[in-house]
């Protein structure tokens, strides 16, 4: 039952609750860094990493520090500072100890601080914690959700990089060139994600 619900959380985070295509979080990197496949993948891996890491820190802090002290109002300030601090820390650690990884991922790290998808993941998951129901999210669910959200970001970025590759060679009206046609393409990609609704429906643990 637990494994089933974790799988459902994971799939839902990738497909039906895709942070880019249905929640509109992280649009800037989605439009800006998706021109080439390798940069799209690099960015997404860095985002996934930071998402899981931030959730692993913010979730316990919120549940065991802020809530018992009645200081939920500090959530926004604290979370954004934790994310910013973590990103810095990861950058320093990577540069010092794993230079190979730093060279491929490190450059994406500074811009993740202000990526709303990361802050969104850490905050949205807390809304699903409701101890009065049996369907509450635990720490494990939160981590899986963060990982799924990152993979969902990756899927969207990779798909979109493919679509944009085609756009480069397409003959499009002059006024649509650049951003407008990119957005229209994004509309079509997000339309295709609407089709996943029925798929995850079978797996969502409604009891």
């Amino acid at each position: 039952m637990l494994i089933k619900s974790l799988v459902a959380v994971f799939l839902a985070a990738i497909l039906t609750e895709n942070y880019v295509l249905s929640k509109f979080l992280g649009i800037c990197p989605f439009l800006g860094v998706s021109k080439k496949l390798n940069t799209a993948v690099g960015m997404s891996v860095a985002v996934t990493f930071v998402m899981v890491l931030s959730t692993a820190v913010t979730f316990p802090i919120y549940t065991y520090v802020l809530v018992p002290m009645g200081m939920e109002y500090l959530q926004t300030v604290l979370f954004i500072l934790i994310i910013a601090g973590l990103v810095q820390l990861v950058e320093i650690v990577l540069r010092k100890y794993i230079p190979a990884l730093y060279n491929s991922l490190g450059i994406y790290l500074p811009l993740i601080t202000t990526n709303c998808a990361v802050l969104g993941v850490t905050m949205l998951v807390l809304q699903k914690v409701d101890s009065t129901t049996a369907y509450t999210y635990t720490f494990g669910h939160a981590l899986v959700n963060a990982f799924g959200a990152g993979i969902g970001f990756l899927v969207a970025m990779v798909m979109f990089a493919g679509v944009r590759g085609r756009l480069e060679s397409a003959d499009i009206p002059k006024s649509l060139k650049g951003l407008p046609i990119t957005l229209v393409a994004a509309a079509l990609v997000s339309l295709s994600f609407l089709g996943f609704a029925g798929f995850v429906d079978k797996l969502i643990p409604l009891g």
Partner: protein
Amino acid sequence: MRFKITPKAILIPTISLFLICLVVTAALALTNNVTAEKIAYNELLSKNQSMKNVCPEAQSFDELVPDVLYEGKNEGGETVGYAISTAIQGYGGQVKVMTGIMDGEIIGVDVFYNDDETPGLGKNTSNESFRDQYKGLKADSPIAVSKDSSDGQTVDAVTSATISSRAVTKAVNEACRIYTEQVKEGE
């Protein structure tokens, strides 16, 4: 590091950042102090409104199970219904439903939180035409969406929002179960 590390170069930024954090925290604590009561009152108000929607005859509510089960009483102190609050995972996020039950029969359903559902689709589960289908159904046997099952008690799903409709139905079933466990067996 490229720049020289002197005590001054570390201390000044640290102290100023610390001071900014301190001031911001103080400002937030102050605002929280001013608004907390009003926010709590707003939440209570919306919950009460929802309980009143599903149990219109009741004048006051007694909390039997905290945050879940409420007993509605009229002016004379007679029980005129039970309001049960349940939450379930919908399409986009949580869906919170208030169900009113009296004598084993559903007298009203109110979807009081579904802001994470898709506007125009899942959000339509809070429309009266959908909610009123539950009225008069029995609490002792499960309810299903007519698309899934044709036996027993059914409701028609909102067009293109089967998942959200199912979520509401599950929440109502959960409320019926709580009613059977807490109220009926206690009698």
